[in-house]
């Protein structure tokens, strides 16, 4: 009568602990993985799509894909005059421009007068500014919001995507990425 319970169920009792250990291992890998955890553009490592944008202002020319194939890495900044964080990042863009980084802009769903007022107020670090009235280029390069900044190498290949405004602490990071894209 007092025969011990059959052993086959034994391992089931340890199953939760095993699953839990697997969970811990998994999140440890996740926590210490060096890669950034933001949603990255699937376009990284791919060439820019073909586009030719009309000038967004009277003071700078428009922007097309060929402008990025001149052998030198450039920044592509997606912005809009109606976007508050874009004003926040303006000093950092000015700082990058002061250090000789060539920067091009894409103004999203914007108006000429507004963009010019924005540039007059916050400074103009851009060599060229294209107007993207239907967000087609924005979608094409895998950007989901404004502001975003892309490092594009001298062959027109996207190398890095920065989501959100550029803060002071991001400037060295972007300079490093530009150097790597040489």
């Amino acid at each position: 009568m007092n025969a011990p319970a059959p052993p086959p169920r034994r391992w089931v009792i340890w199953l939760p602990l095993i699953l839990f250990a697997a969970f811990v291992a998994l999140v440890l890998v996740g926590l210490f993985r060096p890669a950034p955890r933001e949603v990255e553009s699937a376009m990284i490592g791919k060439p820019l799509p073909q586009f030719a944008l009309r000038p967004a202002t009277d003071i700078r020319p428009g922007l097309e894909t060929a402008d990025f194939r001149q052998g030198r890495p450039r920044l592509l900044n997606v912005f809009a005059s109606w976007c508050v964080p874009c004003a926040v990042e303006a000093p950092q863009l000015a700082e990058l421009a002061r250090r000789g980084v060539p920067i091009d802009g894409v103004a999203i769903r914007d108006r000429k007068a507004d963009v010019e007022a924005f540039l007059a107020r916050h400074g103009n670090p851009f060599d060229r500014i294209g107007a993207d009235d239907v967000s087609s280029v924005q979608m094409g390069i895998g950007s989901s919001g404004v502001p975003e900044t892309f490092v594009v190498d001298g062959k027109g290949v996207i190398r890095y995507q920065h989501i959100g405004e550029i803060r002071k602490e991001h400037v060295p990071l972007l300079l490093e990425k530009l150097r790597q894209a040489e």
Partner: protein
Amino acid sequence: MIAELGLASLWLAAALAVLQLVAAGLWLRGKSEALGGVIRPVAVTQGLLALLAFAALVLLFCRTDLSVKLVALNSHSAKPFIYKLAGTWGNHEGSMLLWVMVMGLAGGFVALVERRLSDRMLAATLGWQAFVSLGFYAFLLFSSNPFERLDSAPPEGQGLNPLLQDIGLAFHPPTLYLGYVGLSVAFSFAIGALVTREVGPAFARAMRPWVLGAWIFLTIGITAGSYWAYYELGWGGWWFWDPVENASLMPWLAATALLHSVSVLAARDALRAWTVMLGVVAFSMSMVGTFLVRSGILTSVHAFAVDPERGTFILALLAINIGGALALFGLRASSVTEGKRFAAVSREGALVLNNVALSAILGIVLFGTLYPLLAEAMGAKVSVGPPYFNPMSALFAVPMLLVLAVGPLLRWKTDRLARIRWEIVVPVLIGIAAAIGVAAFARINVLPWIGLALAPMLAVASVLPLRGRNPRRTPFAVWGMVVAHFGIAVSLFGMASESAFSQEKLVAARVGDSVEIGPWHVTLRAVQPVAGPNWTALEAVLDARYAGNAAQTVRPQSRNFWAPPQQTSEAALHTRWNGQLYAVLGGEAPLASGAKPGDARWQLRLWWKPFAPLIWLGGGLIALGGLLALIGRVAADVRRLVAKDKIAWRRMRQGR
């Protein structure tokens, strides 16, 4: 002074937690008889000191004392008072302090009132409770001190995330935390029962009010959180299967399963090891949820709560607490005897099915939430969304809901389905009629269709347990069950209707333009600037007429906060008994080339969501059901205690 006082009481509370743990450990091993007596008072004092520390932090936030780093980082003198108050727990340090405070108070309360359990089991429970608390005390004191001072106070605070300046959100996290902490008590009881091998009805009865209480708070928290996401994010959806939402859903699923299994253990002394396991799992899910939210390991709309270092700390706590508990379970579970047996067709059998289904859904949600992480470890980027979660969870939810209709009618131990066939025939017929009716009149997807058929069936079936009972003599617990199950039917109907019949329109409208949406006729009357205490906004004034009725004014806003700068859209809702009109102002649409100024067009997004409010009304009913059951259980316990005291007093008087 206040900050220093708070810090001092936090240290004292932590020291008492050490004493509580050591005293319980030594006494249980029989090393020291004297220490047994200090456990209860120490637990109470520890709770009060934690309360004092939390009160100090609340005071600092109410005064906007900017010399305290946490206040300077998270508050602003221009913020409305209620958000200054909510700012106390609207940040990592404060919420952790809230956590230990509630946990300490809960432990103190157990120490004060719990008389049913053996002294050994209570000591083990409180000792484990102290052990879990200690992890959080260490976390607070060593890595995220809420009372840290700044060398020089800044002139102004750095505000609070404007998305968080909302009355719903001010009380959403503390509600969930109360739920999590309630589960921590259940967890401690489970460990206490394992350590002392006293897994039985007494343990289940002691644990049940805590599980019920935690479950009520979790239900309210999830319901409120879902409504918050619905109107604050302005996306028109109410559940996104976002990792953070899942993080709050998983403990709820586990707690719901636990709630049902603990009833079986209390009433029939069956499902012993399983109930203990669920006690461990429920709290594990709370901690896993907190970890997933705080570590930022998963990308989510709640990214404001993120910090990888803290994630590591919580993970370490998680590994120690849960790993330890599961190891203990592995060592002891085989010595926990199986408990009473029961037939497949019986109340217990139905509750087992409920438990299996809930656990399966829990597994599905957990797997779906972690899968992106797993895929990423293998080098791929994926995101898992409704196409996975909806059908997979429905796979188990639908059978569970069918069992829900029958289970409460069955008798304990053993029963025959034939006995209740005439009772269930009515709801089944109603369900079939609803299924046919909906299929005949509307072309909708299969899941909403199932929902629309199940909801009326459940609604009728849920009240059947009241049949033949005198309403005044019916125990509160039965009322609670009926109300909660009815709430599930109501909520299900809302979800299915929202998913099947919602209409959406995105338009660029000039002032004066009209839009037709469902039965509504909406006119854009004006767009005007308005200002709040710490934001400015564009407000659209919309006249909405329902089927030719008088116009209702709804005012969606697009808000700009300035500290920190951020744009949010405030959806405007108009609720009728049969649904909700949901309006969002997107902003000014870009002008076509050659357009005159004054031609400005505004992006408006409108939804008509029939019966959508029932989703949250049902959630409220579920919580109300829990509350009724809790009142019933606690009242019965109090009556029993009073009766025992009377008997003891009489015996004393009679000199026996």
